[in-house]
């Protein structure tokens, strides 16, 4: 009997956390890949700001526990279809895996905006996002310029199988291929984690004492790598470049610990995704592609990104 009591109590607790949304207003749900990092929290903040501009809109931001929980995201989407929301904005955790459930949303008459990571699905209303391949290229071009087109570089990357990281790596490799003197000696995974970024970088510095630059496919790993570089008094000698321009990373650029970073504008991303979903729900035309843009952050322009 006590199990029942315990479960009933937890349910009551949760129901009081959840909101009932049975009004006549327009329900829009933004489904991110996770909410466990500064990046997604800023996407959420941007989305909520955009929703405030439209008093009739009720925005919900939901996500699986971690970016790798593709099946959990599919379940969330199924449940949103059951709720018959007015429109969905989705950052897909898997390029192919979410398509069957998105087809169901489309069949149910729910317009779907894709944001953050593009997928090859013709029924999407729009893709809102930066270009991850282009971001990788920007980082690659910057490192080529920093090294004068010559020297050993390495890549520290996020979990294999996650498209964002695949694209960032591909873009980077494309850019350094143009410089014959640049030699990419290693591509090591560090699961987007700071602690792993640190230990992978330590190993890289041991294995390749003449390493001159490292590209990390997100800021968490870049900030870990920076610590390994600093511990060996190599700051300024081994250049580390990250992606995402989290506040912490931009401050590291300002301090000269990170050589540079690529900004991807999360607030703008969340805001534009909500705007596009709002328009689609009201039957207004939406551009097929809404570009958020990406920009190189160096010591010269950090102030623009710290506001």
């Amino acid at each position: 009997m006590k199990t029942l009591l315990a479960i009933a109590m937890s349910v009551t607790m949760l129901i009081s956390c959840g909101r009932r949304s049975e009004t006549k207003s327009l329900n829009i749900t933004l489904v991110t890949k996770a909410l466990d990092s500064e990046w997604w929290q800023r996407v959420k903040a941007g989305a909520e700001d955009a929703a405030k501009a439209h008093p009739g809109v009720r925005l919900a931001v939901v996500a699986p526990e971690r970016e790798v929980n593709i099946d959990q995201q599919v379940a969330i989407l199924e449940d949103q279809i059951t709720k018959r929301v007015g429109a969905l904005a989705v950052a897909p955790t898997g390029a192919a895996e979410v398509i069957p459930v998105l087809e169901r949303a489309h069949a149910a008459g729910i317009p779907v905006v894709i944001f953050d990571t593009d997928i090859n699905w013709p029924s999407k209303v729009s893709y809102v996002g930066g270009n991850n391949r282009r971001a990788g290229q920007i980082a690659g071009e910057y490192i080529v310029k920093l090294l004068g087109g010559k020297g050993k570089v390495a890549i520290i990357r996020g979990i294999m199988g996650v498209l964002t990281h695949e694209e960032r790596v591909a873009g980077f490799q494309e850019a350094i291929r143009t410089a014959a003197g640049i030699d990419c000696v290693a591509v090591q995974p560090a699961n987007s984690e700071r602690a792993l970024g640190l230990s992978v970088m330590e190993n890289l510095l041991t294995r390749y004492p003449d390493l001159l630059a490292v590209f990390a496919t997100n800021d968490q790993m870049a900030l870990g790598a920076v610590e390994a570089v600093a511990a060996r008094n190599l700051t300024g000698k081994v250049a580390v470049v990250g992606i995402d321009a989290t506040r912490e990373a931009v401050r590291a650029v300002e301090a000269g610990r990170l050589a540079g970073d690529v900004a991807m504008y999360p607030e703008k991303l969340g805001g534009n995704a909500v705007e596009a979903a709002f328009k689609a729900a009201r039957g207004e035309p939406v551009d097929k592609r809404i570009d958020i843009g990406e920009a190189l952050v160096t010591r010269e322009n950090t102030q623009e990104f710290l506001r």
Partner: protein
Amino acid sequence: MSETARAVRAAKPYRTISAAALVRKLGPLLALLILCGALTGASDRFFTADNLLNILRQSSVNTLVSLGQLVVIITAGIDLSVGSILGLCCVLVALLMRSGVPPLPSVIAVISIGTILGAINGVLLTKLHLPHPFIPTLGMMNVARGLALVISSGFPISELPSGFRFLGAGTIGWVPLPVILVLMFCGAFHVFLSRTTVGRDVYAIGGNPQAARLSGVPVDARLILVYALSGLTAAAGAIILAGRMNSGFPLAGVGVELDSIAAVVIGGASFLGGVGTVSGTLAGALIMGVLRNGLNLLNVSAAWQTVVIGIVIVAAVWVDILRQRAAQKS
């Protein structure tokens, strides 16, 4: 009304004797019903045919994997490798079909591979005398996940043949096919555990391995079988997941080992071994599915869902201990 009251009163002497057993047996099921009642009150979308089918579909993979985990936990063991075996099988079945093997032989091959990987866990445990099932299955968890990433080069393999997709995404009438498959598995495991000598051996090993050995139960062979069954259900889960998602992806099943352990424990099985039923585990898996679904409908974030499931697991085990103490006193 008065008729039922009379019937209850008439049955009472009999019921008081087995009240504890009854609560243990029906506890998880009652909890599930109460949960459904509460969610029906909270969201007008919850108690719809569409949504209930959603829950069954969403719970099917976890239920399947939990059946194998249940058999392992009854022997006082644990299988940490099920999520990774599921991921590896997901990739393998997609790769086989991409290279031109028809769906049926691909499915048979992958189920066999999953079963063999599970059996290897059992062999490592019994023949290498590793100190606890935690060790071989932790090793297999890493090996299988690593192989899934190596074989797929990290990329998902999508666009699977429609004949195969039917297993995970198809329906017969209005019932999703995975739900039918899961019910068939539940039936088979129930019969195996409660009606066969080998099934009784499994409980005996969990209750007291020394006594089981002395009374002639071939403990090592049974344990290898048990872990092989767990590998089999993980592979079956992979088939359904790949069909449902139209893709074999190397990170499939991350965290499934913990979800399956949770379902088994919520369903009343004991980590000390010797206790656990298929119906309890089914209810445990459904409680988790219903919780997640209901909280999704209420737009409660995944982080809070995790908090709730954590509380439910601890509460369920705590009740289990209270029950055991009460049984010892009486």
